């Protein structure tokens, strides 16, 4: 799996990137919040879309990347269309403009800055730690999953003779190795004074 899916654009030096998080956050979430209000004229979300595209250009984020990310929500949108939502055009433009502003925020903000922001607004330490570990070990685990799939294929794993037991064993081996690693990490944390535990 390729590492750093989003952060690849987060370290540029555009005006947007350099905005402090305390300004960028409220500024980019404002259109998303406005879109969630019950209004049905499409002019406002359309303006948001145009504004976001200009800001993407200023930030140097390729529109091809933006389009790919936006297209990811289409399966969900198709399911929602079955509900026959009213004011479809306004609904669609609101969704699109909200997605674009969220993407603008996330692609111009390094993950580390987000974590710092979380600490500053007083998110409890447990959640900060879990977010940090979740990020840190995600890449390790997906590499392990790739290796497990590769090993399965080399040993003759064949999708035509696919068995759920094979995939389950892969998942289990990743899980067991992870828990073993967790034990070791627990020792590391004790030595580094995470919680002032005594034996």
């Amino acid at each position: 799996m390729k590492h750093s899916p989003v952060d690849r654009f987060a370290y540029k030096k555009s005006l947007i990137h350099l905005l402090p998080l305390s300004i960028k956050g409220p500024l980019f979430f404002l259109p998303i919040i406005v879109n969630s209000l019950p209004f049905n004229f499409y002019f406002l979300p359309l303006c948001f879309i145009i504004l976001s595209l200009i800001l993407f250009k200023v930030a140097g984020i390729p529109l091809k990347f933006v389009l790919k990310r936006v297209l990811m929500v289409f399966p969900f949108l198709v399911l929602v269309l079955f509900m026959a939502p009213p004011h479809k055009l306004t609904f669609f433009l609101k969704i699109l403009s909200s997605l674009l502003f969220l993407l603008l925020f996330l692609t111009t903000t390094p993950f580390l800055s987000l974590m710092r922001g979380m600490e500053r607004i007083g998110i409890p330490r447990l959640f900060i730690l879990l977010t940090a570990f979740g990020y840190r070990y995600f890449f390790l685990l997906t590499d392990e999953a790739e290796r497990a799939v590769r090993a399965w294929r080399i040993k003759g794993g064949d999708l035509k003779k696919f068995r759920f037991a094979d995939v389950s064993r892969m998942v289990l081996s990743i899980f067991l190795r992870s828990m073993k690693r967790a034990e070791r990490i627990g020792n590391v944390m004790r030595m580094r004074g995470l919680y002032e535990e005594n034996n």
Partner: protein
Amino acid sequence: MKKIIEVDSLSYFYPGTEKGIEDIKFDVEEGDVVGIIGANGSGKTTLLFSVCGLLKARGKVVIDGIPLSARNFNGVREKIGFVFQDPDDQLFMPVVFQDVGFTLFQKGLPEDFVLERVREVLKMVGLEGFEERESHKLSYGEKKKVCIAGAIIHEPKILILDEPTAWLDPRGRRELLEIIKGIGKTTIIAGHDLEFIDKISNKIMVLENGRMIAFSHKEEILKNPSILKRVGFE
């Protein structure tokens, strides 16, 4: 020389097994660099964990005058910088400075101070400018160095390294040697790399099946091929 580690009758067996260490006794003087050698499963890591208090072993351990007991694990922990075998276990924070500075952040020290200290220790291990790098993007050798930096940032008296040269290429081993020499602390190194241990240590301990079969100045151990052969070093 002052005794900085005193171990007497140290024993630990993993629950439900006969594997562990038995009746280990030794002292380490300030400034010593002790290499612990032995075959796989001889008890090297078990011994290191028991000396630090990560395993509740029977027997007596005194670290820099503090007896290891159920109540004062933290006091002992402060004296030790432990570099674990797998750097992916030790490097649990996503960014280098978060990980290296972790022990100091835990004490509530201000970020500016911690960052300054992080820079100092990163420079000591030859990783100047690595503060903002992401842990998962580092090479194996770089991870090892970051782990060492993280282990010494709180200025411990003793540095313990478990299999530090595992998976390192020759250049990595040379760099590691220089780093440990440069740090200059009382050091315990467990491993299989006899050449490395020969270059860095002044004393060697030999373990076999959980028991200590020799502990002496390295010249005496290395002059004794029968002991080395017993534990698989031809």
